[in-house]
């Protein structure tokens, strides 16, 4: 399946998903948060695509654009095809629907993103800190994170 065919199938499945203009080395689609769960479900279950593996999920903090970019890396063993799904949410109200009902691992990847970047997941079954203590304040991977403990590397 070529990349063009892939995008064709995806827009057919979910009209709100569109090819991303961001530079990336994988085929990338952008989708609004509301349509994320529906798109993911179809990406996994559609026999033409069957993206069975959620390889990675993380988020990028774009401080200047005031956005969180949620990245989902998918792989389809059947077609040997990679796909990256991007979702943008505003930085002041970062809420994304959870996809842990589709891939079990998403539950834990989402917990990691919540822990380090403070993105909240709607309907998440067990949203709590993963690496840091429950009483930790702030989200360290945010670009705006301030902590007196951190030592700067001398130039």
């Amino acid at each position, binding site marked *: 399946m070529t990349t063009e065919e892939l995008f064709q199938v995806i827009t057919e499945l979910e009209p709100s998903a569109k090819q991303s203009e961001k530079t990336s080395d994988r085929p990338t689609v952008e989708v609004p948060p509301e349509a994320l769960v529906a798109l993911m479900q179809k990406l996994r279950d559609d026999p033409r695509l069957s993206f069975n593996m959620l390889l990675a999920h993380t988020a990028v903090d774009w401080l200047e654009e005031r956005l969180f970019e949620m990245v989902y890396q998918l792989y389809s063993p059947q077609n040997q095809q990679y796909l990256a799904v991007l979702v943008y949410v505003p930085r002041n109200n970062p809420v994304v629907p959870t996809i842990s009902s589709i891939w079990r691992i998403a539950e834990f990847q989402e917990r990691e993103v919540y822990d380090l970047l403070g993105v909240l997941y709607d309907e998440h079954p067990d949203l709590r800190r993963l*690496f*840091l*203590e429950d009483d930790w304040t702030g989200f*360290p991977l945010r670009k705006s*994170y301030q*902590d007196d*403990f*951190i*030592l*700067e*590397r001398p130039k």
Partner: protein
Amino acid sequence: MGLVKKEEYAFDTMPGVDVVLTKIDYVVNWARSNSLWPLTFGTSCCAIEMLMATGGPRHDLARFGAEVTRPSPRQADLLILAGTIVKRMAPRLRTLYDQMAEPRYVIATGACTISGGPFLYHSYSTIRGADEIIPVDVYVPGCPPRPESLLHGLLTLQKLIKEGQTIRKPGVRHKPVISEIPEGVSREDITAEMVELLEHDSVVNIEETLGNLERPTGI
């Protein structure tokens, strides 16, 4: 040595007591230094090189009688800190140390445990040196140190135990601290003070320690 301190007044009027007590002290220290059972504890990379490879056939920690790794801190004498200590682990490490029975010794291996190592800068969670949490007797540098270094560290610790020079009090450091010496103080003064501190700290009254510390239970 608690034994010595407690019995001192009862015996010191008798002639020849010094010799006897020194001999007892020697035997006790000999036993302690030759039977260092490490705790099965390793946090990261250094654990492979320190406890596992050093305990392995080529380097064979058993030659020094230190291969009996005890998984329970109550039965261990030696805490080999192998790997980074992070903020979340620090209170647990303190608990582990508190759960160990006296006499207990600590060897800090690897750059991370000594200073934070490669995770020193820009890290929001790495503790910069395990000796901020528990007293450390011997430092073994490297990232990770070679097994031979740990063997050398172990022999150094044995030597320290035989000389009665181990550290029992948190906050006291064998680590050389390079900083500006204030005016009016000479290097010799500092050395003398450190020697005094070390001598003072190597004497621990077991009765007192038992009475003062409430020890946490459970793992």
